[in-house]
């Protein structure tokens, strides 16, 4: 019994949902398609609750860190930022009916912390790439040489200065993107879908139980 509700029914739910929606993508029948759209709506609502897990995990991790007196300042900053934004925004939304998009304080948090934080953190990668370019990008083998060569040509071809240095850089770049790149990426797309199909078959057949989270 317990195995039925713990394992078999969730698995059956997965398989049923998968085939129900796969049928919807392949077949045309109005009642069926409408039902599927409602199903998509329901699953979208359910899926948005997944965010609760990372909120809880973040809170738990950082409360623990504060208790253990590790990274007290950082963890408190994180908790305050997270919960203050959430509580105030939810209060304004649920009680006063102000959409978060129109809520002034929430938008200030976005443009003062979230947006610059995200953008800066990724722009740091520009420095890392430059350093790695100097240190690690070596023409060690034929494969690495091809990689480097096409990389350098594309970099010059895509920036306006490349065309000033040598008029054929953009032409070469276009050829590289149109031919070897199309072939290579198309292969990755094809091989990706083949691998995913095999994985999904394993999941549907119940051989891949990883998504169930644990072994009981």
């Amino acid at each position: 019994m317990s195995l039925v509700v713990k394992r078999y029914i969730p698995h059956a739910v997965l398989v049923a949902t998968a085939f129900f929606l796969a049928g919807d993508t392949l077949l045309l029948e109005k009642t069926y398609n409408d039902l599927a759209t409602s199903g998509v709506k329901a699953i979208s609502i359910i899926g948005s609750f997944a965010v609760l897990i990372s909120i809880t995990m973040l809170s738990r991790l950082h409360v623990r860190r504060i208790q253990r007196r590790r990274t007290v300042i950082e963890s408190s900053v994180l908790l305050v930022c997270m919960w203050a934004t959430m509580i105030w925004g939810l209060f304004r939304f649920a009680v006063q009916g102000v959409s978060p998009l129109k809520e002034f304080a929430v938008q200030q948090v976005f443009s003062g912390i979230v947006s610059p934080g995200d953008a800066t953190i990724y722009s740091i990668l520009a420095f890392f790439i430059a350093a790695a370019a100097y240190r690690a990008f070596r023409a060690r083998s034929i494969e690495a040489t091809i990689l480097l060569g096409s990389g350098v040509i594309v970099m010059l071809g895509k920036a306006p200065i490349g065309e000033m240095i040598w008029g054929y850089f953009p032409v070469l770049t276009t050829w590289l993107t149109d031919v070897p790149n199309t072939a290579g990426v198309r292969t990755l797309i094809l091989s990706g879908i083949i691998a995913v199909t095999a994985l999904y078959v394993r999941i549907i057949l119940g051989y891949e139980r990883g998504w169930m989270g644990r072994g009981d």
Partner: protein
Amino acid sequence: MDVRYMYLLVMIVVSIPLLKPMGLPLGTISVETTRMYQYIDKLPSRSIIVMIADQSPAAAAECQPAMVANIQHAVNKGHRVLFYASRTDAVPFIDDAMKVVLGATSDHPNYGKLYVNLGYIPEGELGLKGLAADVFFTGRDAYGKDLRAMEFFRDLPKKDASDWGLIIYYGASSVDWVVRQITDVYGCKTAGGVAAVLVTRMYPYYPHSIIGFQTGLRGAAEYEVLVKRPGEAAAGMDAQSLSHLAIVIMIIVGNIGYYASRRKPSGGG
């Protein structure tokens, strides 16, 4: 050598042309951008262009100027634009872009007639599938207004994605899901204002499914030239040029050093 000198060099190489623009010519406008421009240009007036905002704040540096230029083009041609965000932190960028081009968001007189912002639709591909099957999927727009009361949707024959003229994806994560949920099912072509990292992924679909796209900041700069609205993107191209050149030089110097040290019998690889 301390790697931080390298960081300093990058900072300088990018900063100088920003503070003192050299005004290098943009060069030839790429075919991909031109094709996208021509496609939007040839769409009949009042066509529906759907814009998917999937740019994180990081990717916004590349995608936002493209979005602004595209909205400008749509406004010039009198097209209808339907916005929606497929990730939470992309939502404010729709408002931002509307403010830049139209000067207002939901208060604009044509909001609800020519422009509608659907806000965030969760679950990425699943959400897009829902929207494609039923344009009233979300019921209300991002500001809480009822969609069924809007003039925007009134003359749409089927109320699904087959009414759309073009779907444009802005972002850095993936474009395959747009093609497989919209283009191949409903026939509405895809275009993109994508971060340069994603560009390689566009070519296998170009030009049969993706009719054209803007490659990061450069693509946006080209589009700005085409719609004659010089803006954000053009200003960054000098810095792009210099820094690419610097990185190429660093790669070459690094390799010369590598080969020089390999030649010496004592020097390890």
